[in-house]
């Protein structure tokens, strides 16, 4: 049975801790130029059915550090555009002897389907509005670096939770690690029944981020206005923008995070995004190391520590 990383929802606390400690270890090794395990027999397919620059580059860097080969797959030019089903695309890649897949797809659950037909590991690089597990791992590593621990923290996830796979993966990870998770946003952008998601819901920004240790702001898609979910960008910004003024409701040392790409002036202002409390650049950097950890974890069968396998 191949090991997959399809979502944080499916992991237990031990597995999350293991992935995070692997990532921290890899980070140290890369920065200090120490040996890193070589998975040079592995060829991983980068299947981005949905546009992505940052996540794809981040996975390619991670594969590069692990001495893996990567095969790029641009969905626009592929046989998918000639009417091939996802199943047949996956089977083709399987028998072209790719050993692993990193996959992004606009439909929730598509990597799960791929994992049924592909022999090797499948890593979810974002599926629809379901999960984005490596983003959540990168965010968690960033928080741990700044705060020491996740247990007992209050984390507010602000914005378009309904359409956010980042919000879901973060909620699962942080709650499993003992943090209090809050969803903050307008009623039209929060799932109407979030009972099976481990977070409490706040419609008012000041109450929602009160005494927060971490605020994760989410990108607001412009099409929410045309869909009638919001009146205007200006009204959204006036109610939910994380900025110099609204940050005073949170703890003085509250971290400001954002999965990117940012809409400066909409969900977050320059002072919050670029100030000393911002951890946005650290999130991007740590993304590479958690993706190394994810690939390594999927491609090695036992929960072994890096030290035991590096030469």
């Amino acid at each position, binding site marked *: 049975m191949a090991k997959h990383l399809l979502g944080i929802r499916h992991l237990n606390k031990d597995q999350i801790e293991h992935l995070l400690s692997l990532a921290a270890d890899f980070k140290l090794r890369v920065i200090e130029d120490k040996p890193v395990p070589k998975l040079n027999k592995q060829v991983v397919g980068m299947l981005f059915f949905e546009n992505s620059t940052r996540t794809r580059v981040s996975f390619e860097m991670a594969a590069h550090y692990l001495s893996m080969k990567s095969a790029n797959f641009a969905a626009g030019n592929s046989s998918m555009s000639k009417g091939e089903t996802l199943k047949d695309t996956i089977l083709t890649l399987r028998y072209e002897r790719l050993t692993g897949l990193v996959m992004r797809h606009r*439909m929730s659950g598509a990597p799960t389907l791929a994992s049924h037909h592909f022999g090797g590991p499948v890593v979810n690089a974002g599926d629809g509005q379901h999960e984005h597990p490596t983003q959540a791992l990168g965010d968690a590593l960033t928080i741990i670096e700044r705060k020491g621990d996740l247990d007992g923290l209050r984390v507010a996830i602000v914005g378009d939770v309904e359409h956010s796979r980042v919000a879901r993966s973060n909620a699962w990870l942080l709650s499993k690690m003992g943090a209090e998770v809050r969803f903050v946003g307008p009623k039209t952008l929060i*799932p109407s029944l979030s009972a099976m998601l481990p977070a409490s819901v706040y419609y008012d920004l000041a109450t929602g981020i009160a005494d927060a240790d971490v605020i994760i702001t989410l990108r607001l898609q412009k099409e929410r206005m045309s869909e009638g979910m919001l009146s205007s960008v200006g009204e959204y910004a006036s109610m939910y923008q994380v900025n110099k003024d609204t940050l005073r409701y949170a703890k003085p040392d509250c971290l400001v995070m954002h999965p990117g790409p940012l809409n400066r002036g909409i969900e977050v202002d320059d002072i919050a995004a670029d100030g000393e409390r911002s951890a946005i650049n650290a999130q991007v950097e740590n993304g590479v190391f958690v993706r190394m950890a994810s690939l390594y974890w999927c491609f090695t069968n036992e929960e072994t520590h890096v030290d035991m396998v590096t030469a």
Partner: protein
Amino acid sequence: MRTLLKNGRILDPSQELDRVSSLLIEDDQIVGFGNDVLDAQVDETYDCTGMWICPGLVDPHVHLREPGGEHKETIVTGTQAAAAGGYTTICCMPNTDPPLDSPALIDFILDRAASPEAGGVFVAPVGALTRGMRGEELSDLAALKRAGIVAASDEQFPIQNSKIMMQAMEFCVQLDLPIMAHCEDMNLTRGGSMHEGAVSAMLGMKGIPRSAEEIAIVRNCLLSLHTGCQLHVMRVSTWGAVEMIRQAKFLGAPVTCEICPMHFAFTDENIGEFDTRFKIQPPLRTQVDIDLLVQGLTDGTIDCIASDHSPHASHEVDVPFEEAPFGSAQLESAVGVTLTLLTHKGVLTPLETINKLSTKPAQILRLDAGTFRPGGTPVAQVCVIDPDCEWTFDRHKTFSKSKNTPFDGMRMKGKTMLTFSGSEIYRDALFGDERYSVG
């Protein structure tokens, strides 16, 4: 040719009949039941001890897919599946390609259904309510009725414009033609693929709210009340839907409704990790809905059980959940599921069970079926069910072309053993040889 069904529990809801007895079929007609038929000289005898002998089952809601969807199901395979399920009369839906909106297509369906290779069940076509099921202009409903449709429906493309629906109802009152309505406000369902609730929120999928179904039911019930048009609401799935229909009946609207087994067997949680076998329209709801749907079955608000047999080819369902079509094969599991989950749990008595699976749907759509009354059916229509037979549903042993069913591998109690439509059209492998004798 004289056939004796011996010593079974005869259940005929049309005559409130529930007693252990025997039934004699001579040529293609039921000639009598009671103890006196035991003395008759017969050619073959089926020992039905411990089994139910009931009117052939009637399914108001089946998709035979032909013409246009022959890779999913054909009239031949679909009617064979129906016979194996215990059905002798089924209504086929008009959402074929092209839709059943012309008399020539109705002739085609009836010809195919009567062909010797078909399953031997009666097919009662439902015509498209509007031309091309586009919700704009009415079909030639008078001509369709003369061709043999028993009701009109736009199936999964329900008329959104209330004025057109009102005119359709007025015209159908004049024609004395029931309208079967799949109730959905499509502005509220667009892009949705499962029930809007805690599970859709967790899985990150766009939901279909209960109100999408209930708003359309309320509208259609009010139009039915005011026009007097007979309305049959297809596949109710929410507690609110049952409550709305209860109110409409209380107000005197000529409204009936059906439920399909999926909606009392499963909830949205069964979707698990994006299992497309559980994708149906309206979507699987929650346990609260099931509890109140079951109450609606008991108190009679829900009139009948329809299979909503919606076959698809395997390649069409092995896709991401949101891409998958709605529906699955149901004809050969409906009896097992209904007996297991309703009859054996005390929700329905055996007589009520057969009422909802046979007599009531026949009455609603005015079909010559669902009864043992002399002259009630053109030929003998009989179904023999072993209510205590425990078996495991195996999709590879079905007649339907579609092997897409969430009931695969499920233990069931209750199985169709024999189906007669004029003559024997189905005998189950589990009906023991020792129960059958010649002479």
